[in-house]
């Protein structure tokens, strides 16, 4: 409901994921957005979901859950060596509560009340301290000066999608969740009996640890976004004099171009980068020279084409780049 830039672009990504579903994709996008694009109908649709459908079903499910807690009891704590059997579990539980049970009020409710109060105080304290989150900029697709980011609990997905090779995106997005859902739904059927203590279930413990570490790692990666180019070369500083001494006039003119066109956002001067790239820029041999010129003119990889920026003759542009200029990052000048 925070209809802002983050929401707009996040929804755009959600819609484009849905559109990749074979056959029914476009129909699902239409259902989701109330049309082919994110517009007024989209917000009304999500408002209805958010205000009526989701809270209503949550209330129903919570009520059902509480009824089952009353009828079937709470999950008794697992003990190593105590085997749970479907056939006898309920009978054993009710016998236990009859022989050694205490009434819920006041026996068990005191700690519940204390903890609930504590949680409410924590939320109020966080709300006081952090204040409202968003909205970020206006949800306007014509504003492109934006860096939308998902909320904390979706950051792992953001990192995963950024790091996956493009060919893997559709299978991972469409098959992965289906497998996860099927496994979770099937789990009670093939693993509902036997040892329930975590001490006797190393695979379960390792699975949870693996999931936690994976999600934590992806969330951390999303915070750093290492897949975006890092513009931490010596931008802004003038080209050091040592690179200009003993150069031809044309090379010095090249240094000016290098400075003025922000080449140094990605390219370093001196031997700071991988030797292969360095020699490539230092002295392109005749066979690689044509590739070099094409790269500078047309761009490619992370590098923008510079045809419009370099007005004069094409053959000059190689000599305009100062010697020893090389990418600071692998792939930065590919």
């Amino acid at each position, binding site marked *: 409901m925070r209809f802002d830039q983050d929401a707009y672009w996040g929804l755009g990504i959600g819609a484009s994921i849905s559109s990749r579903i074979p056959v029914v994709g476009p129909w699902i996008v239409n259902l989701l957005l109330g049309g082919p694009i994110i517009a007024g109908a989209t917000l*009304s649709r999500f*408002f209805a979901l958010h205000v009526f459908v989701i*809270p209503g079903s949550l209330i129903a499910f919570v009520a059902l859950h509480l009824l089952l807690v009353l009828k079937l009891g*709470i999950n008794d704590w697992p003990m190593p060596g105590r085997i749970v059997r479907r056939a006898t579990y309920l009978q054993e539980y009710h016998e236990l509560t009859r022989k050694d049970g205490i009434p819920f009020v006041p026996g068990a409710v005191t700690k519940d009340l204390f*903890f*609930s109060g504590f949680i*409410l105080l924590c*939320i109020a304290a966080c709300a006081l301290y952090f204040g*409202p989150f968003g909205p970020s900029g206006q949800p306007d697709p014509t504003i492109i000066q934006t860096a939308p980011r998902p909320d904390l609990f979706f950051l792992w997905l953001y990192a995963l999608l950024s790091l996956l090779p493009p060919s893997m995106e559709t299978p991972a997005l469409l098959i992965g969740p289906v497998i996860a859902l099927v496994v979770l739904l099937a789990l009670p059927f093939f693993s509902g009996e036997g040892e329930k203590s975590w001490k006797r279930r190393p695979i379960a413990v390792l699975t949870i640890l693996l999931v936690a570490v994976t999600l934590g790692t992806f969330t951390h990666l999303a915070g750093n976004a290492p897949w975006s180019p890092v513009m931490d070369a010596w931008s802004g500083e003038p080209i050091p004099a040592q690179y200009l001494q003993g150069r031809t006039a044309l090379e010095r003119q090249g240094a000016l171009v290098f400075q003025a066109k922000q080449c140094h956002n990605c390219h370093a001067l001196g031997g700071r980068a991988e030797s292969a790239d360095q020699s490539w820029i230092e002295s392109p041999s005749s066979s690689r020279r044509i590739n070099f010129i094409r790269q500078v003119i047309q761009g490619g990889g992370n590098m923008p084409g510079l045809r419009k920026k370099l007005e004069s003759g094409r053959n000059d542009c190689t000599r305009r780049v100062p010697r020893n200029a090389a990418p600071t990052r692998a792939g930065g000048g590919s």
Partner: protein
Amino acid sequence: MRLIKNVGDWFDQRLQLAAPIRETMEHPVPRQTASWAYVFGSAALTVFMLQLVTGILLALLYVPSAGEAWNSLQILNHQVALGWFIRPCMAGARISWSRSSSSTWCRSSFSELTNSPGSLPGS
């Protein structure tokens, strides 16, 4: 006193709620589950109710239209009394809800961490 009792009896006779409520409150639970490991479920219920309350408060002022939604959030943040406080309460309740319900689920597998197994009757 007698009047209050009469009125109470009349309501109970019409609504039939006293017995189920009493039964719910007094339903027996295993002695060892009166433990700090078992408080997350009720905490989830509490923050869910907080969500309902704050959600209703926000819905009073939020305008669900593409042109107005963003502005109504700005008004909530900056002009409405305590709007800046209710919005993060809602967000905090949403996060606590997911944390509490997943903690409840984890507890159902890991609760012996906080219970001493020796205190279990019959073990």
